[in-house]
């Protein structure tokens, strides 16, 4: 997907907005993305909408609120990876020449409380709570800690970093910094994961403008080099899906396609719905040795000032997780970092290559790995 450019990005802040509709949120994100791209609603040829909870097939109605009419609106649901799947399909549509300018929009209005399992047709997993996200990630955490000798404090450092970065992000849901002690002493959710190691349920929206044309001169060019989708069924895996084999496979494919290796990546966004998610997926992307990502967080190597910054906007743990919007928000942050527009959380110097990893439904809805280059 080498000829597809990101011309602009926009977010509605993530958080709880009981008086706003999904359409209200998405309209703001679209307006901001189009303004950054110096484009008008009339320039949009098609919209790819990712959403999973905020109403079935609602994309067209939501886009009406943004003033977009008369163009195809495609609805996509891949749980937490919905807008990354939307990006992959939108990029292919632009690359093929079918559309010149396309919007990728992710939005969500979250229900209160814990998410239901995303595993379709699985009453055992759903009604017994065993496929709920907290215990699923807790199993990952226990396995990871036992296998690599990682401590609770190391894992907690990922949450500390997330909150530190989120405090510098005006669009983040949780903006209060915390310490390792705060994280470890917050209420236990699923052993060993405490509340501060779990992402919040957030409302929010994010939008990306993709174009085959060069963006306006004031926006440096960012290309979508590769955006690959994969699925995994844990019960077909040796370790039941605890290891991030799908991410590892996809990362290999996007690096090969770009002719680069993980050592060329300057910044990353990974799906940190819970702290072990960041650790395992950073490693699966090849950005640090297996078993080291949590220790790297404790040593500040994955902080903004470190050698391999991860989730500079606070990630899901702090920016928040409106599940349909998360993938597009990851790309928005990388775009800002690559173009030097990330403000007080800008990596200096601005990196030239970035990777994003987004997972939906415990990998069985979709995992998407995206490579961006300036």
């Amino acid at each position, binding site marked *: 997907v080498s000829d597809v450019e990101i011309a602009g990005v926009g977010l509605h802040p993530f958080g709880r907005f009981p008086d706003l509709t999904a359409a209200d949120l998405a309209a703001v994100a679209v307006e901001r993305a189009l303004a950054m791209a110096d484009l008008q609603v009339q320039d949009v040829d098609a919209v790819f909408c990712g959403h999973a909870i905020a109403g079935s097939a609602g994309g067209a109605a939501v886009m009406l609120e943004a003033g977009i009419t008369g163009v195809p609106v495609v609805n996509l649901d891949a749980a937490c990876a919905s807008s990354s799947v939307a990006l992959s399909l939108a990029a292919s549509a632009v690359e093929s020449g079918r559309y010149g300018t396309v919007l990728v929009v992710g939005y969500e209005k979250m229900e209160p*409380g*814990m998410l*239901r399992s995303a595993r379709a047709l*699985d*009453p*055992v*997993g759903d*009604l*017994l*709570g*065993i*496929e*709920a996200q*907290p*215990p*699923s990630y*807790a*199993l990952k*955490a*226990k*396995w990871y800690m*036992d296998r690599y000798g990682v401590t609770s404090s190391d894992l907690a450092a990922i949450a500390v970093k997330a909150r530190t970065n989120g405090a510098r992000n005006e669009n983040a849901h949780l903006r209060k910094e915390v310490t390792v002690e705060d994280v470890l002493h917050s*209420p*236990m*959710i*699923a*052993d*060993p994961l405490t509340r501060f190691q779990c992402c919040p349920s957030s409302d929010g929206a994010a939008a990306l403008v993709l174009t085959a044309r060069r963006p306006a001169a004031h926006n440096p060019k960012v290309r979508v080099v590769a955006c690959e989708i994969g699925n995994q*069924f*844990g*019960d*077909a*895996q*040796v*370790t*039941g899906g*605890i290891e991030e084999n799908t991410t590892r496979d996809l990362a290999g494919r996007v690096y090969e396609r770009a002719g680069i290796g993980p050592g060329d990546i300057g910044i990353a966004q990974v799906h940190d719905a819970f702290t072990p998610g960041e650790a395992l997926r950073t490693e699966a992307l090849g950005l640090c040795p297996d078993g080291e990502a949590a220790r790297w967080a404790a040593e500040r190597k994955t902080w903004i000032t470190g050698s391999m910054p991860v989730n500079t906007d606070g990630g899901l743990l702090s920016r928040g997780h409106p599940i349909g919007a998360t993938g597009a928000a990851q790309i928005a942050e990388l775009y800002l970092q690559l173009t030097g527009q990330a403000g007080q959380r800008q990596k200096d110097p601005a990196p030239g290559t970035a990777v994003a990893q987004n997972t939906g439904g415990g990998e069985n809805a979709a995992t998407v790995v995206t490579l961006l280059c300036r």
Partner: protein
Amino acid sequence: MGAAEGGLDSSAKVLDGRRMEITGDGAFALLGIRCLSCGARSHPARRHCPSCGGPAEVTQLSTAGEVIVATVAHTARAELLIQPPYQVVLVRLSDGPVLKLPSLASRPLRAGDAITVEPLVLAGAAGPVVAMQACPVGSFRE
């Protein structure tokens, strides 16, 4: 109502017929498939093998297994059939398949512990339902 002595009521509703069944004599059977192409066994029952996509036949799986990793859930949605705290364990059956199970065992399960998959009768909205759980070997029905 059709229950064999010491067994389950054969008319009881199972929570997921792809995963388990109650046989005519009231015994609990853990279901899975054997792939007719690659020979792999997996759980639950499906039309095709999740590893290679080949055709599969339904088979009864061994209920013996070993814990890969375990956790304790301290929060859950209110409508679940079991409420916290309860254990969630990932187990590898002696037949090979890996599956996630709850466990109401009073002692904590740990990696390497031997378990058996046993029926778990729960109160559903429309009456009793049969689910399944991991039980440490030697302490079942403790």
